[in-house]
C-alpha cells in the first residue's frame, strides 16, 4: 500500500522555471512547499566537461530517457499513432531545473496582439478572416496586465537587452545592457535598417555583465563559449532555475525538494485536489503527499497527461469540439529561414551564446498588413550566433553532394563562411490538433503515453514561404554570394529537430467551457489546482515561450497567495 506523508501547504509537480519561481515566491511568503522532481539533482559543478557536442547534443545527455517515457504521434485521426522512438522534432527536459537548464536564453515578451488575437483579428479584418476550424482565442488577460510580471521575471533572471521598437510598452528598461555585437550581427543591423526594418538586440538570459538580482543572487557575465542549447552553463551566467530561484526557496528553510520522484496522479475529491501520488523511482515505492494546493509545472505534455490520467477537468473531444483538457495543441513553424554563403568573408561562427543575436518584429504578430495574405500572424526574424558546433553544422550550398570529396571540401570551406537568418513562425490552434492518451503505448509504470495529433496546415505553408522570402531578402542585402531558402513547407514530421516550443492543452481563457484555467493559471474545475506553463497558451506566438511562462508563473504565485487567504475562484 502507498505510504502517506504529513500534509504540506503546497505541492509542486516538476521543478523547472515555473515550479522554481512559484516555490521561491511562496516560501518567501512563509508557505511550506514540497517540490517533486522526477529527474536528478543538478548543480553548476556538473558542467566542467560540458563542451562535448557528442554527449550533450547528439546523445541528449540532459533529456528525458525515452526508453522510460515518450509520446506518440500521428498526422491525423485516420492513422495509427506510433511512438517517437528516438529524439527528433523536439526535446523533452528532465531533472532539477528542467528545460530551463539547457535552453538558449532567448527571453522575448509576446506582443499585445498575441493575447487578444481573436478579437483584434476580427476587429481589423472581419470575422471571415479566421478560417473554419481555426480555434484561436483571446487569453483572458492583456499584455498590459501581464507586463509587471514580465518585468519581475526579467529582473530575477537579469535579462540583457534593449527596447523592441515594435513591442508592447515597458515599465522599465532591461536590467542589464545588450550582449556584444558581432560583425555578422552588425551586418544584419545595417541591412535591415536599409530595408526600413527595425532591428533590436535579442533579449538574452546569458548576462552581458555581472549582475545581482533583487533576491540577492549574484551571477557572472557570459563568456560566449558557444555551448548553451542542450547544455548547462558552467559559469552560471545563463539564467536557469538552479542558479536563481531554487537557492532562494531553499534559503527560507520552507522548500523541500524531492528528486527522483515521479508524480503519477493528482488525487481529488468533490472538485478539490487532496494531494498527489508519486513513485520514488530509486525504490519503486508508491507515496502519497497530501497538500492544500497542487501546482502542476511539468512540461506541456506531462501537464496535460497528468490531468487526463487523474480525470481532472473535462477531456477534449475533437468530434464535438467540447471539453478542454488536450485542446489547442500548437507548435511552431521554424523552417521559413535562409542560409547565406559568403565567399569573401569569414566569421567566428564557433563562438557565441544561446541568445546572442539581433531580431526584427516587422513581420511578427499583426505588425504588418494581412489584408491580402492567406495567413494570420507571423514570426520574429533573427540572426543569432549561438556557436556553430561542428557535428551539427555542416552547411553547404544546395546542389552540393551530401558526402565524399566534394562535400568534405565545401563543408570545410563554408564552415566559417555561412550565416543563417531564422524565423520563429507562430502556430495557430485548429479543432483537429490535440493531445489525448494513447490507447496502446505505455510508459515504464504502465501509464498511457501522451498522443499528439498534428500536421502543418495551409496557414503554416503560406507563413513559412512568406518568412523564408523575407529572410532571404535580408541575407541578400547583407551581401551573401549565394542564398538558399525554403521554397515549400512539407508535412510535419517527427524526425528532424525543429523547436521545443510545444504549447496548449490546458489553455487560459476568460470563461470555463472554452478554457481550462483562468488568468491566474487556476483550474476552473478545481480551484486549488494551478497548472502553469506553455500548456496555457491558446495558440503559439512567433517567439520563444520562456519569458511568457516566467511571467505567468509570477502571476500564478500571486494568485496562489490570494487563494490561500480567501479561497474560491480568483476570477
Amino acid at each position: 500500500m502507498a505510504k502517506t506523508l504529513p500534509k504540506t501547504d503546497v505541492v509542486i509537480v516538476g521543478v523547472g522555471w515555473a515550479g522554481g519561481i512559484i516555490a521561491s515566491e511562496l516560501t518567501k511568503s512563509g508557505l511550506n512547499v514540497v517540490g517533486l522532481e522526477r529527474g536528478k539533482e543538478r548543480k553548476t559543478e556538473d558542467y566542467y566537461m560540458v563542451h562535448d557536442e557528442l554527449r550533450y547534443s547528439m546523445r541528449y545527455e540532459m533529456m528525458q530517457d525515452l526508453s522510460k517515457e515518450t509520446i506518440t504521434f500521428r498526422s491525423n485521426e485516420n492513422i495509427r499513432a506510433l511512438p517517437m522512438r528516438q529524439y527528433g522534432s523536439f526535446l523533452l527536459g528532465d531533472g532539477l531545473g528542467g528545460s530551463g537548464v539547457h535552453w538558449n536564453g532567448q527571453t522575448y515578451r509576446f506582443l499585445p496582439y498575441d493575447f487578444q488575437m481573436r478579437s483584434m483579428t476580427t476587429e481589423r479584418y472581419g470575422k471571415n478572416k479566421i478560417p473554419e476550424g481555426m480555434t484561436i482565442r483571446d487569453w483572458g488577460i492583456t499584455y498590459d496586465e501581464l507586463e509587471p510580471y514580465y518585468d519581475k521575471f526579467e529582473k530575477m533572471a537579469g535579462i540583457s537587452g534593449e527596447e523592441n521598437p515594435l513591442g508592447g510598452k515597458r515599465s522599465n528598461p532591461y536590467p542589464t545592457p545588450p550582449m556584444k555585437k558581432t560583425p555578422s550581427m552588425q551586418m544584419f543591423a545595417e541591412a535591415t535598417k536599409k530595408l526600413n526594418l527595425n532591428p533590436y538586440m535579442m533579449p538574452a538570459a546569458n548576462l552581458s555583465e555581472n549582475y545581482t538580482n533583487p533576491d540577492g543572487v549574484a551571477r557572472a557575465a557570459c563568456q560566449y563559449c558557444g555551448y548553451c542549447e542542450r547544455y548547462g552553463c558552467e559559469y552560471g551566467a545563463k539564467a536557469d532555475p538552479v542558479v536563481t530561484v531554487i537557492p532562494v526557496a531553499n534559503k527560507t528553510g520552507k522548500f523541500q525538494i524531492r528528486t527522483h520522484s515521479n508524480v503519477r496522479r493528482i488525487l481529488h475529491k468533490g472538485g478539490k485536489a487532496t494531494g498527489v501520488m508519486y513513485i520514488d523511482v530509486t525504490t519503486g515505492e508508491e507515496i502519497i503527499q497530501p497538500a492544500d494546493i497542487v501546482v502542476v509545472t511539468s512540461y506541456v505534455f506531462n501537464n496535460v497527461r497528468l490531468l487526463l490520467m487523474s480525470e481532472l477537468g473535462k477531456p477534449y473531444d475533437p468530434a464535438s469540439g467540447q471539453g478542454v483538457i488536450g485542446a489547442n495543441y500548437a507548435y511552431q513553424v521554424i523552417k521559413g529561414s535562409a542560409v547565406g554563403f559568403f565567399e569573401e568573408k569569414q566569421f567566428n561562427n564557433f563562438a557565441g551564446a544561446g541568445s546572442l543575436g539581433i531580431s526584427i518584429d516587422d513581420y511578427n504578430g499583426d505588425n504588418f498588413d494581412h489584408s491580402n495574405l492567406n495567413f494570420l500572424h507571423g514570426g520574429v526574424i533573427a540572426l543569432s550566433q549561438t556557436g556553430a558546433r561542428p557535428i551539427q553544422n555542416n552547411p553547404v550550398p544546395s546542389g552540393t553532394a551530401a558526402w565524399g570529396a566534394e562535400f568534405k571540401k565545401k563543408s570545410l570551406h563554408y564552415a566559417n563562411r555561412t550565416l543563417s537568418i531564422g524565423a520563429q513562425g507562430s502556430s495557430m490552434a485548429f479543432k483537429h490538433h490535440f493531445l489525448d492518451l494513447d490507447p496502446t503505448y505505455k510508459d515504464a509504470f504502465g501509464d498511457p503515453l501522451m498522443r499528439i495529433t498534428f500536421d502543418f496546415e495551409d496557414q503554416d505553408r503560406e507563413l513559412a514561404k512568406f518568412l523564408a522570402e523575407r529572410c532571404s531578402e535580408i541575407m541578400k542585402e547583407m551581401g551573401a554570394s549565394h542564398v538558399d531558402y525554403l521554397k515549400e513547407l512539407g508535412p510535419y514530421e517527427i524526425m528532424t529537430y525543429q523547436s521545443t516550443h510545444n504549447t496548449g492543452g490546458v489553455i487560459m481563457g476568460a470563461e470555463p467551457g472554452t478554457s481550462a484555467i483562468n488568468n491566474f493559471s487556476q483550474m476552473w474545475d478545481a480551484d486549488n489546482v494551478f497548472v502553469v506553463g506553455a500548456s496555457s497558451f491558446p495558440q503559439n506566438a512567433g517567439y520563444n515561450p520562456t519569458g511568457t511562462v516566467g511571467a505567468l508563473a509570477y502571476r500564478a504565485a500571486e494568485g496562489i497567495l490570494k487563494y490561500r487567504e480567501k479561497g474560491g475562484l480568483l476570477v
Partner: protein
Amino acid sequence: MEDSSSGPDSGQVHDSSRRKFLVNSGYVLGTLAVGGVISSLFGCAKDGEDNADSSAPADDNKEAAAPNYNRALMYFTQAQFRIVEAATERIFPEDESGPGAKKLGVAFFIDHQLAGDWGFNGRDYMNPPFFAGEKEQGYQGRLKRRELFDIGLRELDNYSQTTHGKGFAELEPDQQDAALKAFETEEVKLTTISAGSFFKMLRSATLEGVYSDPLYGGNLNMEGWRMRNYPGSQMSYLNIIEKDFTKIEPSSLQAHLASH
C-alpha cells in the same frame, strides 16, 4: 587475416610527439640525413624502435613510443572493421586539406559507440508493438543500431561480391563510391532494413567520429577540428567575439580537466 589496426594509423600519436621531441631538442627537419633514423622517427620503418637515435634521452623515447590503447575493437570483427574503415573514408576522404575518416580513427569511434548505450538503443523507446508507420513517424523497427550495422555491412559486402566479385574493402575507390550510392538512393532493396537509412546512419556516425572530442576515439589529434578552424573546447571567447575571423589552436576536454 592481417590486423589493419596495428598499421600506420597507430603511428599518428607518437609521430607527433616525436616531432615535438625533434623541435625541443633543436633538430630541424631539413638538415637531417634521410636514412634509418629519420624514417623511424616518422614511422616509415616497419620496426623503427631499434633504430631510434641513440642520443635521445631514454625517458622521452619511452614516452614517445606509448601506443594508443584506445585503438582496439569492442564490437566489430576485423572484417567488419575493414569495411567500415573503407566506407567512412569514402564519405570523408583524405585530401589536400587533411586526413580522412581512416586516419582520424572514425571506424574505431563507431566501433566504440556500438559497444555502448547508442549501439543498444539504451535511451530509445523500444517497446512493442511494432508497426510499419508513415515516413513522418520516424524509425519504427525493432532492430538495434548494432544489429543494423551487422546487416548493413554484410549486405554492402554481398553487393560488392555480386557486382565485382570482391569484398567492399577490396574494391577500387570509385567502385566503393558507386556501391555506397546504390545504398544511399535505395537502388539496393533489402528485405530486413532500409539501405538508405543504413547509409544515413553511417554518414552521420562518420561526421560524429570526425568532429567529436578525441576522447571518443575519432578526431585524432583534433585534426578534424583543425581542418575547419574549429577551436574545440575553449573556456572563453570574450576577447574575440566582436572581432573578425580569428584562428585559434584547438583544445580538447582533456585541457579542461587540467584547468580545474
